[in-house]
Every structure is written in C-alpha cells, then in structure tokens.
C-alpha cells in the first residue's frame, strides 16, 4: 500500500519542500500518522483542534488519471495513489 506524498507551498519550516515521501497507509489519517514520524510537527498543523483536517489546507488525491479531494481523515487511499498537500487558494 505505498502512497506518495508531496507538499506544495506549505510547511517550508518543516523542511518538506521539493521532497517526495512514500508511506504505507490505507487512509489519510494513517498517512498523516506515518508522515509525522518523518516530519515531526506535521500533524499538529494538518489536523485542527476538533480532530478534523485543518480547513486552511487541501489534500489533492490522485488515483490513476483522476484527481479529487480528500476532505476527511478517513478518506481511503490505495496502493499507487498520490497525495499532494497544498494551501487553500482564496484568490489574490
């Protein structure tokens, strides 16, 4: 269940820019948990105080040639999928 994860224009202070992460996980929540080991502090930023995906970020989920959003932590992720974490675009 290898999932690749990229970060675009977020968390530069955590040293994730331009790096590709590969983790084994079945859901977004587990992906974040696995990443937290490599990127300490990530979970605190990505998950809000209510235990939900922080609304300031979007998780773009690419499955084959289809792109969608993972908006909940229990979003299922499959082997070969790609996850990209970005800030929410709000114009300007």
């Amino acid at each position, binding site marked *: 269940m290898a999932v690749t994860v990229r970060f675009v*224009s977020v968390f*530069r202070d955590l040293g994730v820019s*331009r790096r590709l992460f590969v983790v084994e996980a079945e859901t977004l929540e587990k992906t974040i948990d696995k990443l937290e080991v490599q990127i300490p502090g990530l979970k605190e930023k990505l998950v809000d105080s209510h235990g939900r995906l922080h*609304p*300031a970020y*979007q998780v773009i989920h690419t499955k084959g040639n289809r792109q969608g959003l993972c908006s909940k932590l229990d979003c299922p992720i499959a082997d070969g999928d790609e996850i990209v974490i970005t*800030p929410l675009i709000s*114009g*300007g």
Partner: protein
Amino acid sequence: MYGFQGTMLIVDLTQGKVLTEKLDERFTRNHIGGVGFGIRLLYDRLEPGVDPLSPENMLVFASGPLSALGFMGSTGMSIVSKSPLTELIGDSDLRGSFGRDLKSCGYDALIVRGSAKSPVYLELTDRSVQIKDAGDLWGKTTAEVQSILSRRNEKGFRILSIGPAGEKLVKYACISGDVRFFAGRLGMGAVMGAKNLKAIVMKGEKETPIADPQAMKNLMKEIHYEVLHDGSCDTLSKYGTWNNTGPSNLKGTLPTKNFQRTTFDEIDQIDGDAMLSRISAGDRTCPGCPIGCRRVVKSEQPYRISPQYGGPQYETVAALGPTVLLGDAVAIAKANELCNLYGLDTISTGVTIAFAMECSEKGVLTDKDLGMHLKWGDPEGILQIIRMIAFREGAGDVLAEGVKRASEKIGRGSEEWAMHVKGLEIPMHDPRGKKGIALAYATAIKGADHESAMHDDVFERENALPELGYVKPMGRKEYQGKPLLVKKTQDLWGILSDALPICKFPMAPPRPLKPNRLVSALNFVTGWDVSLEEFLRVGERIFNLGRLFNVREGADRTLDMLPNRFSEPTPGGASTGETITKENLERMLDEYYDHRGWSKDGVPTEETLKRLELKAP
C-alpha cells in the same frame, strides 16, 4: 459622527480652487465609505458619456469608517473613477496607510476634478491644502518622485504618485503609494495623468472619533490572536500570495501562454518555494496587520532588483511569468520592478504582452511592426516591451491601449487572442476550472476582476461560510449553485470589503474575519446598530449603483461575456477538458440576473431599485 471626519475635500484643478462639503449620516450609513462613496459620487455628479481622460471626469480617493484603525489592512483606500480602459465604473484599492492618512488630514474623501494647465501636485495636511508646481517632477519615475518629495517634505508624509505611464495616458497606468503599494487596475494612473496631477502628499494628525474604542480593541485583540494561533493564515504569512502559484498549477487553473494552457512546465522555477529560496528579502505588512503577506525581493544578478520597491505578488508572478512563458524568478521580479517604476498595472501589462507575443507567433505582428523580435519567454524582450508601453514608443503605443483596443486596431483575427472582459485584461485564475469565477469575471461591474467574488476553491469543503448559508461543499468545476454564490460574495467580498475598507485576505474562509465580526467592527466604530442583513443590503446597493452607472453608459447583457478561448477545452492538468461555453454562461447569467432582480437584459428592475432605495438613471 463617529468613524468619520464628516468632510469631503474637492479640488478643482481647472480653476485652482479648493472647497469642502459636509457628509451626512444618511449618506455614510447608506454607502459606508471607500468604493461605496466613490460609486455614489460618480453616479450623482458625472454626466453620462464623459471621456474618462477629459477634465470632466472625477477621481475619488475615499477612506472608510475602519480606515483610522490599525486593523487587518483597514488603513487603505479606494480610488474610483470612470475607467479609461473600460469606459465604465472603475475602482482600484490601495493598501498601506493612505486611507488613514487622508482621514488624519481631516477628510473622508478627496474628489479631484478638472485638469491643471501644467503639472502640479497636491499637498494635504490638517492645516492646509496646496496645489503646487510639479514641473520638476514630470517625466520622473515613481521612485524618483518618491525620493524628491521625501526630501522636500518633513518626515512622515505619505506619497501617491504616477510614473511616465500615467503621464503618457497608458490606459492601464497605476497609482503608486510610496512605491510599495499600488492601485493597479483600471487605469486610475492615466486619469491622474490626464489631470496633470503628478502626486499627492499627505500628512495630518486629526483623530477620528470611535464610538466604542474598548469594544473595538477587544475585537481586534481576539481576531489578531486567532490569526496568529488558529493556523488559517500560516501559509499566507510564510509565503505571501506566492502560496497560490503551485496549487493553481496543480489544479490546472494557472494562465499560461496567453490562456492557451493552464499548467506551466517550469513551475518549479517560480512557485512559492522557488521565490522564497531565490529572491525573497523578507516581508512587509500593512499597519496593524499580523499576517505580513507582502514579500520583498532582492537580487544582484543577472538583474539588480531593489527591495525598496516591494516585490511581485501572485498575480504579477503569473502575469509576467507563465502567461508570457517566462520561467525565471529574477526576470519576473525585474519586470515587476519596471512596471512599478513606470507606473503600470502588472496584470494588464502581462496579458497585453502575451497578446502581442501571440500576434507575433501567428504572423499578425511582424518584427518590423513591433520594432523588435518578441518571443515567448524572452526576458530581454519582455523588459524592452514594458518600457516601450510605458513611454508609448513604437508598437508600445498601440499596446498601451490595452488588448481590447489594440486588437480592434490590429484586426486580422487578433480579437480572438485579446483576453479581456469589458476591456479589462483577465487576471490570473483560468475560469474554466472555476465556474463561479467565470461568472464573476463576466458580471463584475469593473470587468474581469479576481477580487470581485470569493473563489470556488473556498467552497469545496463543509461549513465554508455558514453566515451566507454555505454549509455543504460545492465542487469548483460545478455550475450548480454558482450564480447565487457569486451574487452573495460579490456584495460581501467584492464590495463591502472595499467600502469599510478591509483587506480581503483575512475575510476568505476559513480565516477569522467573518461577516458578523465585520458588522461588529462597523458598529463599534460608528455607534450604529447595523444588522448583518442591512450590511449585506448596503453591499447589494453599491453593486447595483455601479451596474446602473454602467447601464447609463450603454452597458447591457452583451458585455457580460467571456473571450471565446474559454469555450475551448483546457488541454492539460487537473482541469483537462473544462470549458465555459456560451450556452453555459448564458444559463448562469439567466439565473444570476434572477437572483439580482434584473431584467433579461441585465438592468435592475423597478422593484429591485425600490427595495435598495435607488432611482433609475
């Protein structure tokens, strides 16, 4: 009257006269300030059909009730006039402290009318208003004017100025604020140039009374705390608006090669991380704002770029980067610096250069026509054509008219490559991947404007904006529900933010400046008891007043259109295959007009006017 000085300054440059008028509470409550004041004043006092570059046009600089506070970008102002680019209502917001400075001189708004016989500048203080000779400033860049007037005046004067582009009446010339902030869009700098007004310097110490300062202080403290601790503004603080570049490319909404594409092969050279690594020299912020989104840039090689002139924001990076196929962060920053010094709007400049490049590529403009070889992505060519536009040299003269007029003059099918709505060049969000923004571009009173309605991306999650009824997610590529969404957020985000005024960035969900808090801030400052419903109705009133102005100038449904290019499917990226066909746009317009209470032709009905306490033209 709390929140206001209660006085408007009128300067007639033809007669060399200065007078003041009192503002009454009915006027202020019905229009709040900023863009609301500007549109109302132009609607009431400008004859239809006036040439925007004639002495008869008016240029309104208006603050709002929040301007006197150091509160999240509230110290800015709106600059409103009949636009030389669209010949319709035009406004451009100017951040920084200029709204507060105007208030400190004792005025809520400044109207400039007429035209001076020779170049002048205005000096405003809380004791006097003087029209001064600007013969020695004419021909100078914004930076040179800044330097001269800073030396001439005591410390603390704020300086608005135009560069050579404004003097040469380039239709998209901007107004500089201390050469760090810019009222970029719609040619307000050309209107200033047509009046022979090179600069305005301001300094005053008049206090604006606040009805409940303690309540306002508590609210500001609460919001500032959330900005710093709830994570909603983190990427904006760290990356500035450069945080948009990478995600926009990823979503296939990044205008590339004059909107022929929506993804850029060299994105890694210009995205937020690249800009921070290569040219960032820190950040600046507007007074009182804890976010600090304005990036400052610096470089020595291959181009020398001074941090004194700020740095390019997202719109500029995209307009002078992917739109012209330039993937060099330093060259983009240099192009931005030239635009700032010459006084050009960076969005219109980039889109106009892209238009010229497409004309060149397709053989409609030859090297001889252009006086140069202009090819996609060539930094030297881009820097050269910027100068030619600013000074109206050679082919720069026709390009200085904007893509609409330039394409009409050039002809030979080039109209199809002129990317504009109502004459205003399209900003840096390809609308095919955002159906709400497509409708917002088509219907905004000032033409294609990226800040006229909230972006579709914001509404892709639950509970995006419950105050306006948005609790269920809406896909960015979907049509359903977008007409009402655009109508509501045009009134709130597009209009009311510029009336208060307040920066739009902290208002974008999930950031903490929510509608109810804006209403509270307004009431704490003015002592009014405005409800959210009344507040939104003011936004609707101002929007409709702008529409009435345009209708009086001859605008109708036929102008609420998008370029044909958007009916072609996007060729790649995550918005592959997306279109905005004429039929789909017409369907959205029908529904949007219904929500607005407009006729099928796009004219506010009698019933709508009555509800909003407006009169037909």
